[in-house]
Structure formats: C-alpha cells, structure tokens
C-alpha cells in the first residue's frame, strides 16, 4: 500500500515537473552537431533561402577570437526566430533566439571563434527559413577559454 502510494506520488511529481523541464528546453541535437549542415537540420532549417533582409553586422577582422561582437537583425516580416552558426567552430551552432509578444528580431551578442570562418545567420519567418553569411577573419582563436 505504502509502496503504491509512493509510486503514485512519484508519478504525480514527474507530471508536475515536466512542464518546467519543457520551458527550459535546450536543443541537444542541434548544439551537439559538428557540421553546419547538421546544425541547420537540427534547428529545422535544412535548406534556407538567401535573403538580403537578414543583416549581420560584425567586424571584418576580429583580433581576439574569444570576444567577437555580432549583431543580427531581420527585416523579413513575421520573423519569429534567429539562429547564429559559426561554420568552422567545433560545434557550429552558437545560439538560437525565439521572439514573441513584441520582441523585435534583433540581437547583439559576443561569440567565440576558433578560426577565420563564415558566420551564418538563419531567420525563421512564417515557417520559412532564410539565411545570410559574413566572413570574419580571426587573428587569435578563442575557443580555449
């Protein structure tokens, strides 16, 4: 009897905890991908279309690969997510941002870059995927930090 009760309480606890776990979802497959192609697939953007309305602002040459400032903004109507992929990093996917309730599709972040690489931004708007790239040259790699 006691055992059954314990099991039931345990199950109830799992059911209660689950929604919170879902809130803090982290896309393990996409972040664990070792190629940009697998990272794109992992975020559901296997074949994004190039777009000039997705803009990456970043220095052409980053002296310190440990802190490379990147600004991404999308002028594509209905953009709900932006992802940043550093193609030559050991794990290319750096970040994904989901925008809702009035957040503008804009983000500024600092990333680590292992070596000179194309940086790819991906935007998702109305279920379609768009992309833009910019090459950033790195003098000293910054992934050892």
């Amino acid at each position, binding site marked *: 009897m006691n055992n059954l009760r314990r099991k039931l309480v345990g199950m109830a606890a799992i059911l209660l905890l689950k929604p919170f776990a879902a809130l*803090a*979802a*982290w*896309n393990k497959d996409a*972040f664990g991908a070792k190629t940009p192609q697998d990272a794109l697939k992992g975020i559901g953007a296997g074949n994004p279309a190039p777009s000039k309305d997705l803009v990456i602002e970043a220095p052409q040459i980053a002296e310190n690969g*440990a*802190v*490379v400032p990147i*600004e991404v903004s999308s002028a594509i109507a209905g953009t709900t997510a932006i992802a940043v992929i*550093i193609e030559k*990093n*050991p*794990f290319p*996917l*750096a*970040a*994904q*941002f*989901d*925008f*809702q*309730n*009035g*957040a*503008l599709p*804009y*983000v*500024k*972040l*600092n*990333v*680590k*870059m*292992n070596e000179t690489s194309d940086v790819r931004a991906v935007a998702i708007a109305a279920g379609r995927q768009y992309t833009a790239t910019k090459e950033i040259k790195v003098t000293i790699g*910054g*992934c*050892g*930090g």
Partner: protein
Amino acid sequence: MAGPMKMRATLGSGYTDVRVLMTHPMTTAQSNQPLHFIQNITVKQNGKAVVEAQISQAISRNPVFTFRIKGGAKGDKIEVSWLDNKGETSSIEAAVA
C-alpha cells in the same frame, strides 16, 4: 563562478533597448576546465516572455546581450534570467528608464 548580473533597459525610438551582462565562466569542451555554460535565457516584459534564447559554449565569457522590444514605456518591468548546464540560475529585474 557565476556572479552578479547587470542590466540597463532604456527607451529608443519606438523600441525598448535591453542590454544585459551575465557573470559566467562559459567554459568550453576545448578548455581544460569542466564544461560549464549558460544554456537558456528568458527575457520578460511586465511578466510576459518576449525572448527565449538557447545558447552554447561558443558565447563569450561574461556574456553581454542586447535585445529590443517594440514600443514600451518608462517604468515597464524587464526581467532577465538564465539557467546553465549545471542547473545554476540567476536573474535580474529593472524598470525601463
């Protein structure tokens, strides 16, 4: 170690600018230290989630982000929280100035 956060939320022309700094080592699998990095960030405006981010170890140490929210007003409550791969968490709250 994970430490204090700093945040400034200001009104731009037609949007609210949220600049936030998190104190965190953000160590990578390439370093000789244990993997320790922030995975989730949530930005809320007056209690409503506006940005949900998932980030990797490729974000620089002591991460700084700027986000923008359409419109907004002085006094709006902005809250930013993070959760890392070890289950540590922190948050900060400020009113739009």
